[in-house]
Each structure stands twice: as C-alpha cells, then as structure tokens.
C-alpha cells in the first residue's frame, strides 16, 4: 500500500476531509468514503456515464479521476438535487415523462444534462441530443429521456430558473 494522502473536497456545499490511497477512484471515494451512493458505477472505462458528476460545474466521469485529484475542488452529485418530497424540476420531469425504468443510469443522465439546462434552458433538439450523447440507458430507448429533458427545459424557461 502506498502512502495515504489527505484530501479536502467540497461536495454538495459541504466540506469533507479524508486520507486516501492515491489509487482510489473518485467514484469509489464518493460512494464508499462519503457514503453518497447515488453516483453509480457501471464500466469504469468512461463508456456508460453512470458515474457522471460535476467537477467545478462541468460534467465529468468520476471513474476516470483519482480522488486525490479532486483535492480543493467543488463536486456536485445527484444527492444535491431534490428530496423524495420535493423533487428537482429535472427529476420531476423524468418521473412524469417516464424517463427511467430501472433507474441505474438516471443519476448520470441528470448530472450530464443539468449543466446544459442551467447554462441556458432554451435548448434545441440538437442540444438535448448532444447533452445525452455520453450516457447509456439499457431500458428506456432514450425517447422518454429526451421528452423529460424537453419538459424540464420548458418548465425552467417558464419559471425563470437558470
């Protein structure tokens, strides 16, 4: 085992400090060290997108970063969105438009799509498609996910959210 390195990260506006081995993936750090199990792990090779989180506001694969590299950075995971009682607009749209079945891929989709809608919710079909391009879903066939994103975008435009 190599030396432990101290890491301080801000996750969902809360500061966490942990000592970890350099080889610990950020995805494992989030799930096992911080017990935030909403971030899913599918492939650990960057393909599936289930582990997508936001690093300093940009969607990235948490399986393709080491936890030590996140030292001093801001991380946002799916736990930062709504609660069971009060879903985030995007989560609510996924629910209403049947944007999920098993739900394994959902946190990744939410974290990939949200920065795009937050930058500008007036999105074209093409922008939506591009925002979904890096996430795989084995259940829905994608159409319902696209519908959900459209619905959320419309609500965000109407509600002046962004």
């Amino acid at each position, binding site marked *: 085992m*190599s*030396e432990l390195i101290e890491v301080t990260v801000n996750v969902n506006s809360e500061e966490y400090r942990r000592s970890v081995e350099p080889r610990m993936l950020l995805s494992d750090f989030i799930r096992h060290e911080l017990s935030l199990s909403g971030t899913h792990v599918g492939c650990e*090779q960057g393909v599936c997108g289930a582990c997508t989180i936001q690093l300093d506001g940009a*969607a990235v694969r948490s399986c393709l970063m*080491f936890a030590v590299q996140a030292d001093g950075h801001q991380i946002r995971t799916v736990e930062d969105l709504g609660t069971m009682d009060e879903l985030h607009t995007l989560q609510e749209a996924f629910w209403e438009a049947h944007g999920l079945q098993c739900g394994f891929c959902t946190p990744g989709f939410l974290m990939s799509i949200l920065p795009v809608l937050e930058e500008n919710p007036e999105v074209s079909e093409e922008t939506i498609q591009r925002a979904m391009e890096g996430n795989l879903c084995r259940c829905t066939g994608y159409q319902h996910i696209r519908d959900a994103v459209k619905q959320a975008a419309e609500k965000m435009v109407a509600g002046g959210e962004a």
Partner: protein
Amino acid sequence: MKPASFEYVAPTTLDQALERLAEHGFEAKVIAGGQSLIPMMNFRLAQPSVLIDLNKIAELSYIRLKDDELRIGAMTRHVQVERDALIARHAPLIHEAMTKIATPQIRNRGTFGGSIAHADPAAELTAVTVALDARFRLQSAGGERWVPADEFFFGMFATALGPDEMLVEAAIPVAPERTGYALEEEARRAHDFAMAGAAAVTALDEGGKCSAARLVYFSIGDVPTDAGDAVAVLIGKEPTPDLIQSVVDTAADRLEPSDDIHATAEFRLHLARVLGRRALQRAFERAAVEAN
C-alpha cells in the same frame, strides 16, 4: 477492476514535472486528462509506479496566435479547443474534429496534448495534425526539440517521445486564404472511436484549379496514413467529381488496413474510399466558398 498502487506527485511547474520524469523515467507516467490512461490503469493494462499529475501546471494550458501559427498548450482541454474562437477561425479543421472526439464529459477532462501523446490510431487529432503540417515541441530536463507531426507517430500508442520527454505544445500553421477542409468518419455510435476516418485540406487558385490537396486517413493503419502523391496529382487541375473519385481509388489501392474487433479490413477499405471522397469533395466546396 481497480488500479495497482502508485506513488502520486502533483508538480505545479513544468520544470518540476520534467525533473520528476528525468528521475523516474520508464517507471513513471504523466497523467493529463486521464481519459485514456485511467481506463488502462483500471484494467491494469498500465501499472506505472509513479504518476506525475500535470493538472496543476497552469502554464501548459493556453491557445494563442504567434506569428503565423496557433500555439496550443499540451494541457488545454478538448472543451476549450472546441469553444475557442481563434481555433474556429484559424484552424477550422480542428474545430470540426473536436465534437467528434468522445463525449462531452470526456472532452471536459481530456487534453489536446494527451490525445496526441497517446497516439491511438483512431484518434482524430493524429490525422488532423498531420494534415495541417503541425509541429510538436517535446521537452525534457535536458532541453527541447521540435518534431513535425508526420514524423511523430511511430505506431499504435508509440511516438517519438522519449521516456524523459513531455509534449508541451503544438504549433499549427494558420489556414491560408482559399483553403477548404473537412473531416469525415464512421463510428458505430456518435461518441465511439471511428472505425475509419479521413481529414482533407485543399486550396483553389483564382482560376478554380486545385493549388493544394492533402488527405490523411486515421483508424486505417497503426499511424495516420497520408495519401501523399496519390492526391497531390490534383494540383493544377479542376477538381471534378470524376477526378476526385479516381484519385481516391488510387489512394485506397495503396492502403493496407487491418482487421480488428471493430471492423474488417475489407469494410475499412470501403470506408476509406467513401470517406476519402466525401472529405475531399466537401473540402473543395468550402475552398470555393472561401475563394468567392
């Protein structure tokens, strides 16, 4: 799977990184965006004992115009290149290539230098930099040297980089007037590595005759494959569809693509013909618009 153990260092200057590299040589690997290296470490195809993280070296991230060249720092992320106005204006071929590289999440982390140093035969930037006559600056603790793109790629994942050297920047000549360009590729899904692709750069003179033509394939062989004089015969002629077709057929006859799990050699050859023709055609169309 999980990566094997390693020692982690995160220098904040290029000099520190080069010193570390000189010290550890073959034992060490630099990590840029990690978008190719970490998958390899996760599957234990790579097991460096020392990992030198370049992400804290701010001086390696820039896009600037210097004389008649664009200079791109090795740690400039794909997403920065994709959105940069200087790139769109002076190196439109690179601009066009960017959104074809991987997915948005991977482009948020992956770097220009990493893509080139990694030398995946299917990486768009290998063929694009060769087609644009780019040069790369390689630096070690002992000094620096410039290597032209067409001498940089040695084989699959193999380059001119020595164990103590880093790629620090790429220099790309600004596109001259009346130049057209195009990148064509075929992948199974939007963000996958291409099964085959072609990058074209062409120019027209005042009379509408071809004054320059370059076609470079990727994902056809282990290194970017320049169609060379097969395409240069266009120079001085009017690039009619028939002529383009015959030129592309000659070029394809010289290719020796290989089979792998992604595509058969035969299918690759077919793609090379189709994509080569489309790339040249579209490049000439754009050159004609530029010329007007």
